[in-house]
């Protein structure tokens, strides 16, 4: 079934049109990449879908229900959770406390009230769920360290772990690989792939085209606020408009 449906969203800041007309449909269980050159409107689109910005026109539907213009926390409660560029963790809390915090919406709920992902443990015991997520994401050894002490790659993993605590159906990752060294990148990329096996749909925005090509099932390319191409890795790399959009920038992705 379609988990996310974005229809003709537009975002204007005064006269500036950041996002002109974008429509995307994502089926459940997919890993979708959203790429485009700098300033193409990727992050704005991200904000529009997750509720951090309101579109000036168009609509967003999540699992069939309209979420356009709703407050981000309400959208998160429905199962759409996003992470942020530039790490977003609770810096002074421990790793464990961070993930514990992620369970916030589940407090006081019993199993039957939240739709459970059968591959994840029940949220009726937040302690157990926290331990499980830490283990799953490889953070157990650092669980008592303050988040700010972690290296960038692990902080990134932590922010994903915290998002998992919410039990998202759709996880939106905002440049999860930015600023990481190759080892860290491959570690995070691997974690992202394994999430799909746990029934979570992923939408990610990334600059690192190579990584996107290898992780994602389908890729949407945008430029100047519009979609210019969509397809799998082969289709995208052979698409002339995509090549043109990145013309002259290819070097930067080889690093």
């Amino acid at each position, binding site marked *: 079934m379609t988990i996310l449906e974005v229809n003709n969203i537009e975002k204007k800041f005064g006269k500036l049109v950041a996002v002109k007309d974008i429509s995307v449909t994502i089926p459940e269980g997919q890993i979708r990449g959203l790429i485009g050159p700098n300033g193409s409107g990727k992050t704005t689109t991200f904000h529009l879908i997750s509720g951090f910005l309101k579109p000036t026109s168009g609509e967003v539907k999540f699992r069939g229900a309209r979420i356009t213009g709703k407050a981000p*926390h309400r959208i998160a*409660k429905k199962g759409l959770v996003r992470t942020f560029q530039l790490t*977003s*963790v609770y810096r002074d809390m421990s790793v464990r406390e961070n993930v514990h*915090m992620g369970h*916030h919406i589940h407090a006081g709920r019993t199993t039957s009230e939240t739709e459970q992902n059968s591959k994840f443990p029940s949220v009726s015991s937040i302690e157990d769920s926290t331990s499980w997520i830490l283990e799953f994401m490889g953070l157990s050894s650092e669980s008592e360290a303050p988040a700010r002490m972690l290296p960038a790659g692990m902080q990134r993993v932590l922010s994903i772990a915290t998002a998992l605590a919410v039990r998202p159906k759709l996880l939106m990752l905002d440049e999860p690989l930015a600023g990481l060294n190759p080892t860290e990148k491959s570690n995070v990329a691997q974690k992202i792939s394994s999430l799909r096996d746990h029934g979570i749909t992923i939408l990610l925005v990334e600059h690192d085209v190579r990584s996107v090509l290898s992780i994602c099932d389908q890729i949407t390319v945008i430029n100047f606020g519009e979609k210019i191409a969509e397809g799998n890795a082969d289709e995208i790399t052979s698409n002339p408009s995509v090549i043109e959009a990145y013309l002259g920038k290819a070097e930067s992705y080889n690093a």
Partner: protein
Amino acid sequence: MTIAQFITSTPRRFVYACIGTAIAAPLLVALPHALSSYWQSVLVIFTLNAIMIMGYRLITTMGGWSFSHVATAGLGAYTTAILMTLEVPWSFWITLFLGAGIAGLFALLIAYPVLRTRHYYFFLSTFAAGEALRQGYIQFKGITGGGFGIAFIPRPEGFLGIDFDTTMGFYYLALTAALIIWLLLYRFDLSRLGRTIKAVAANEELSESIGINTWGHRTLPFVLGSVIAGFAGSLSANFNGTINPMDFGSILMFKLVAAAIVGGVSTFFGPILGLLYLTALEEAFRTWAEWVPLLWGASVIAVLMLWSGGLEMAVIRGFKLLKAFLLNRNSNHSAKTLDS
């Protein structure tokens, strides 16, 4: 939640706090007997300021340093003053709660615009809102008595054999209020709600993205803190017997903010420590009263420049040192290093 759940979920620290309070309470009750009437007054005023600063600290937990706190306390004070000096005076208890409610309502009204701001914009906008409120106290002469304020505010009627017309009697009232508020607020601080509020202050974006209603979690402490201010204001009006707009001006506000900075706000008792320090300074320099704001200002600058963390940090480190020292004496090892 059920009573059973409430009890089992009670944090250990709160239990200690209750025990500590039970031990300290008789001492605090006995304290004024050892003091001259001047110092008893100082004690009462300190207690009322402590209530106000507990409310202020609550607001800082959501990340905002409000400058409208004292003016909002004035709403409680004027409510009590106006209603208790009518031809047919209202009951103290009703004005107390009504005043606190009005203070909270004011906070709720300005919450939408003011909570859209952060950091110094928040400071500036609450400053302006507070000042406008104070100007209201001055200008609406008919109701508030204008620059002259309101006088002849009576004390509440005594009960249980306590006469509130005496300073010592009123002290019991103030102390009881302070202890109740302290326990309630501390419990709140330790609760999940209290922790969520601090999480929102630590990282608003992240909190919003994991489903926390950040708006609500910022408005609630702001309104609650203002309600507490209203209580303090009301009680001050009764104690002083007169109020005028100058009472709710920037010097008291500065004292609260300075106490919070000098004492620190990470712990619950930090601001109260700061208040102790500033009050001690004020009393020590009674004869050179004009110098006091300078000393307060210098203290603030000193803390910010030299000793981040404030007095609360000094106390915490002191306890750690003490603990390490005491543990050390039982071993032959050389001095342990302290983990910070």
